[in-house]
């Protein structure tokens, strides 16, 4: 699976405008963009920063599968998924998903399906760094 501009895994800051532009054209009326940002606390505990690790080729392949699933279910849609890896500071975007469709209700549905599926299936892991330790999120029950 080769990476294309619609599917992008990068250690550089994500740019919402760029992701949005990939799916915007003059025949799509509505664009829905989801941005997942790094939060400053988990269960009340202060997070200093996060580290994202990916199984890169498989992560790209799984993100492309999500894209193809959306395109199959909504044939007139366009979708782009950009995900960050490496060290992220609080407030930075970890993922941006942009979906455009002729009718807006579909764009909301498709964008939500995409992020829900990404969080379940794409081999990317985040480690939260606290003042007194670090934890791989979701690793333990």
């Amino acid at each position, binding site marked *: 699976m080769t990476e294309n501009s619609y599917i992008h895994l990068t250690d550089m800051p994500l740019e919402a405008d760029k992701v949005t532009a990939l799916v915007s054209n003059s025949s799509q009326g509505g664009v829905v963009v989801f941005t997942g940002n790094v939060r400053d606390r988990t269960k009340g505990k202060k997070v200093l920063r996060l580290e994202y690790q990916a*199984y890169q080729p498989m992560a790209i392949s799984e993100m492309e599968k999500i894209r193809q699933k959306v395109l199959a279910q909504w044939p007139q849609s366009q979708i782009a998924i950009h995900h960050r890896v490496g060290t992220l500071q609080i407030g930075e975007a970890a993922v941006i998903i942009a979906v455009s469709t002729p009718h807006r209700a579909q764009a909301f549905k498709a964008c939500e399906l995409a992020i829900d599926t990404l*969080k379940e299936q794409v081999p990317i*892991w985040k480690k939260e760094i606290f003042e007194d330790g670090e934890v791989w999120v979701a*690793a333990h029950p």
Partner: protein
Amino acid sequence: MKLQVLLFGITRDIVGKSMLELDYRGPSDIQSFKEMLKDKYPEMSNLSHFKIAINQEFAREDSQLQEGDEIALIPPVSGG
């Protein structure tokens, strides 16, 4: 069979390296392979779960390991 197993997230920390080279002599089904890993690295039993990827695809119940496959351990993902 000789297997190279890619490690990510917590499994990389448990094993202490990013790739494990194994001369695996057990049955080639996924369940047996996972049991062997849990025996060898008891901390893996404490995980919520972990999956196996073969050649960058999630292994299915009936998948079989073959020499030369790209194997990876996939602990619970947390992207997004």
